[in-house]
């Protein structure tokens, strides 16, 4: 039996684009997230990948209700939290956490690491006393490869990768059932990355944690995720089991994206064929008509300029939005 922890239905998040010197007028809209739907099973990892600016972080922030959705539903354990206010959300907050892409901006520079890591434990009453929280913080530091004495220092005294691990320690401190990891290991070298990723896997095995994993590192995405959604300009264009999508991508954008990843071996790397996409990166402010990918698509047909393809189920575990795919 599969158990769905999070179900996102037709999620939209639009931002106004304002211009003008004194009187700011809304001149356009950025459809950062535009009709996105996906499910995350309990104990499983769903990955979101796609070009910079395609809306991944906005999906994450909206799902956690750090910003309100423009439209759509967010079911967490079968409860629609999309319209909940602060107090209704509180019991859910304890179950979901996020590790942000840019750790420096999410760590309060005036707090010590000890305060940063213990605060959520005390707020959510996971630890009964300050001492208990502090003891847990010590073991959390070890888990992420840092030391207990680091708790007395301030964020600016750490390296980029160390700060990222502090953000991870804070997020896992309250043992959330659902954890959003937005480029959680982007500043980590491969060896520490392996340690952290293995830690996430341990939590998943032991406590059935579910993850929404956002990363540009496709090697890592393949390794850690069970299902994957490929995003392009605010929409998911392909969704399926990770292994299947990586072995046989169906959407032309997925094909290009997967072929562009460098392979860490100069011999293989410098002799390999890649699909390099033509055309400039499109803008989410004025998206092309029809399929958004059509100006860069090597298989473009007439219909692609006119109609946005329906996102439909094409096989047991695969959804694709492309006119080509039967």
């Amino acid at each position, binding site marked *: 039996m599969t158990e769905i922890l999070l179900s996102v239905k037709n999620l939209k998040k639009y931002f106004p684009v304002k211009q003008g010197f004194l009187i700011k007028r809304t001149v356009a809209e950025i459809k950062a997230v535009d009709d996105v739907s996906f499910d995350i099973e309990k104990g499983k990892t769903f990955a979101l990948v796609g070009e910079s600016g395609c809306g991944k972080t906005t999906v994450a922030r909206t799902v956690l209700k750090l910003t309100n959705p423009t439209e759509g539903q967010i079911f967490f354990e079968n409860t629609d939290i999309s319209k909940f206010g602060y107090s209704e959300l509180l019991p859910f907050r304890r179950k979901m956490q996020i590790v942000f892409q840019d750790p420096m901006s999410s760590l309060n520079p005036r707090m010590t690491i000890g305060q940063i890591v213990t605060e959520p434990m005390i707020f959510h009453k996971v630890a009964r006393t300050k001492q208990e929280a502090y003891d847990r913080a010590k073991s959390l530091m070890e888990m992420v*490869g840092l030391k207990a004495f680091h708790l007395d220092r301030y964020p600016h*005294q750490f390296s980029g990768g160390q700060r990222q691990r502090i953000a991870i320690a804070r997020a896992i401190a309250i043992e959330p059932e659902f954890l959003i990891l937005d480029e959680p290991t982007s500043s980590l070298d491969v*060896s520490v990355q392996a340690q952290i990723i293995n830690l996430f896997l341990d939590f998943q095995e032991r406590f059935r944690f579910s993850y929404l994993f956002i990363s540009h590192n496709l090697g890592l995405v393949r390794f850690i995720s069970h299902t994957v959604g490929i995003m392009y300009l605010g929409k998911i264009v392909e969704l399926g089991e990770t292994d299947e999508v*990586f072995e046989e991508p169906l959407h032309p954008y997925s094909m290009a994206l997967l072929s562009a990843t460098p392979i860490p071996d100069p011999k293989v790397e*410098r002799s390999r064929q890649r699909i*390099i996409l033509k055309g400039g990166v499109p803008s989410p402010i004025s998206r092309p008509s029809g399929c958004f990918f059509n100006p860069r698509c090597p298989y473009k047909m007439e219909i692609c300029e006119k109609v946005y393809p329906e996102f439909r189920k094409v096989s047991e575990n695969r959804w694709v939005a492309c006119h080509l795919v039967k």
Partner: protein
Amino acid sequence: MKEPILSVRNLRTYFYTEDGIVKAVDGVDFDVFQGETLGIVGESGCGKSVTSLSILRILDEKGRIVEGSIVFDNVDLTKISEESMRKIRGKDIAMIFQEPMVALNPVFTIGEQIVEAIVLHQKVDETTAKKMAVDLLRKVGIPEPEKRVDEYPHELSGGMRQRAMIAMALSCKPKILIADEPTTALDVTIQAQIMELMKQLQREYGMAIILITHDMGVIAENADRVVVMYAGKAVEYTDVKTLFNDPKHPYTWGLLHAIPRLDIEQTRLYNIPGIVPNPLKFPTGCKFHPRCEFAEEKCKSEEPELKEVVNGHLVRCFFWEKVEQAKKKEAGDKQ
């Protein structure tokens, strides 16, 4: 013989904290040549960023360069006045920071910030500078830069912020660009585009790049030479092909094993056993010995030097020949 544009010798940078002395950088040597890319790799916390902050002399008040020299254009940057240093920063040597929000000011639009950088170092008026800013944003792959230029950092995606900062660093055509994890928040397509842009500037006017990254794929593709750092020290220094085909330091060898790959199926990621040593209490002898499968008694008490073991290949290890044997064995096992 080519002359290096930047020569770092025996650099040591320490932080004098309440808990003791943090030896963040403790013996780093490398050369950077015009038009070339030097890669710096190594574990989180090994001193890569502090090395670059030392070159620009932007350490926080507790940090000090205690030994060594950093020679740029025949002057030792560790010796010159703060005022002379200010003229070099951003103009001759520019930096792309690991975390964009450190470099970007949240209360100004990205356009205002790039314009300020341009006007500071070049003789152009603001209108021209603004045009240049838009142009740069286009070059780093930001769509509709005319609109984006008036946005605040928080209105951009993580990768766009990173590119805005790259645009700012490139705005004055520096002689040396220090790029600290420049493409971590970027997808591979844009990553390739940014690296291509940097290479183009390299070809056009010989900009040199110091590329700090933990992504061995990016190193494989872009670096000419590579320094591998461990616990504040350079442990291996050679050209990129040799590093991948013939690593000689046990740490480098382990590092190359820990990479997740798209082209191979794996169930668990390899990681080098043990943890990164505490910079307040480094182990005696070779800093890597507690984690090294080849270590002997000698490694516990004596510190090896960074030595040339074959032509142009520097290694800080007494027993690098053991790695050779292990490599041969591994190659044999595969067959």
